[in-house]
């Protein structure tokens, strides 16, 4: 089983915000994500590029991170997100759970979730 980094959110000015590398080799295709979707203040494209019109910041995210953020934008619970991750990626439930918690903490820290505000 291989897991790619759940996400690699990168902010402007080359200041990378690396998240816990755990999931590898996402087997998800970009087409699994909507063409664009809004998550909190950021509009994400299927290619993993996100732009925040209120702050002017932009980010890149891995396909797995996109799946999580799109799931959150659809109002899914954590359990539903875990189910989606384990069904789409070759990852154990415990690893996915650990990485999801880490990722949620990271996006909250970056101010990318409604809860952060």
């Amino acid at each position, binding site marked *: 089983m291989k897991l790619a980094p759940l996400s690699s959110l990168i902010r402007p000015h080359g200041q990378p915000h690396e998240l816990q590398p755990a999931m590898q080799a996402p087997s998800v295709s970009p087409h699994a994500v909507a063409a664009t979707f809004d998550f909190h203040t950021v509009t994400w494209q299927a290619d993993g590029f996100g732009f925040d019109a209120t702050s*002017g910041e932009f980010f890149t995210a891995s396909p797995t991170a996109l799946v999580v953020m799109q799931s959150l934008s659809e109002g899914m619970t954590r359990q539903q997100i875990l189910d989606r991750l384990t069904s789409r990626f070759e990852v154990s439930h415990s690893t996915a759970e650990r990485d999801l918690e880490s990722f949620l903490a990271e996006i909250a820290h970056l*101010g990318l979730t409604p809860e952060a505000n």
Partner: protein
Amino acid sequence: MNASPVVAVTGLHRGENPQPGSAVIRSLRRVYPELRIIGLVYDSLESGLFSEEDAPDAAFTMSYPGAGVEAFWQRLDAIREIERFDVLIPCLDAEMGPLVEAPEKLRERGIHACLPTAASFKCRDKSKLAELCERTHCRTPQTVAVSDVNSLHQAAASLGGNVFVKGRFYEARHALTPAAREAAYWHMLEQWGAPVLVQENVQGEEYNVIGLGDGRGHMLGSCSIRKMLRTASGKGFGGMVVRDPQLDAVAQSLIAELRWNGPFELEFVKSEGPKGEYCLIEINPRFPAWCDFPSTLDCNLPAAVLELALGWQPREPLRHASPGKFFIRHAIDMTGDIRDLAALTTNGQFFRQPREIIPHPASSRSL
């Protein structure tokens, strides 16, 4: 007044610390390509004089601000004997004081300008920002005006030691040690005079708002950006348009409180963290060097200033640019001619000649 107005613009040097004049000219010509524009310069090597696209039609050297206010007006009168300009768009902070304090001198000469009142101009002074921000419930870094070295160190200590030392009109240096503070203090004093400002260092992203106030508390147009690239001295070399209701509201409340008339730039730092607030760093009483960027996006503020100064009806409403548009500054080399330099240096004036156009060989070929 001339049948077709003649406009004078200052601040044409786009060097390491770019001035706004050339961007103002470029924006004016986007709307009024035939407009006659003269440059008022303080140095014969101001780079905008030699630009192909945004050079003035003629240029005149001005007396240095250090020569005093009387010399300023005398030189302006002498220039108008040769080129009777109708509108003045000042683009340098140091020129603003004499102009806003004596608007009648402009009026009696028949010069139109779009300037703030002396009262609102003083209220946005760096040393008065705290009072303005208190009235508008806007955050601003603690700032202390100092005029001697002892006060400098006391002020820095009271602000935690990690401070910016700023000139009265321009420049800021980050100073962490007493030696760095002193060096910055003497530099600012020599360049810009007293007082020197000592300002608390607020960490965060920088945001700027350019706009045009109508003098009654409203903004006729504005554009907000996040600085994407900065020079070593902190000057923005790239900016991304943003649209944040919180930033718009802060800007609107400041302009309403000041009843600002004319162009302005508000400089903010948004403190770090998800709940970061906009912290006002300073208010520039004129256009910034990036003022032509919004003009490419249906927000031509320099053209609106010209129309406002002349009492013309605005051509169309100014739009806020769409978030996601950005500018990157691109420094290129200009070609000058020694004849222009000689004319400016010896006579204090030069009139731009049509450029020699060398046809491309391909253009003479028959198809």
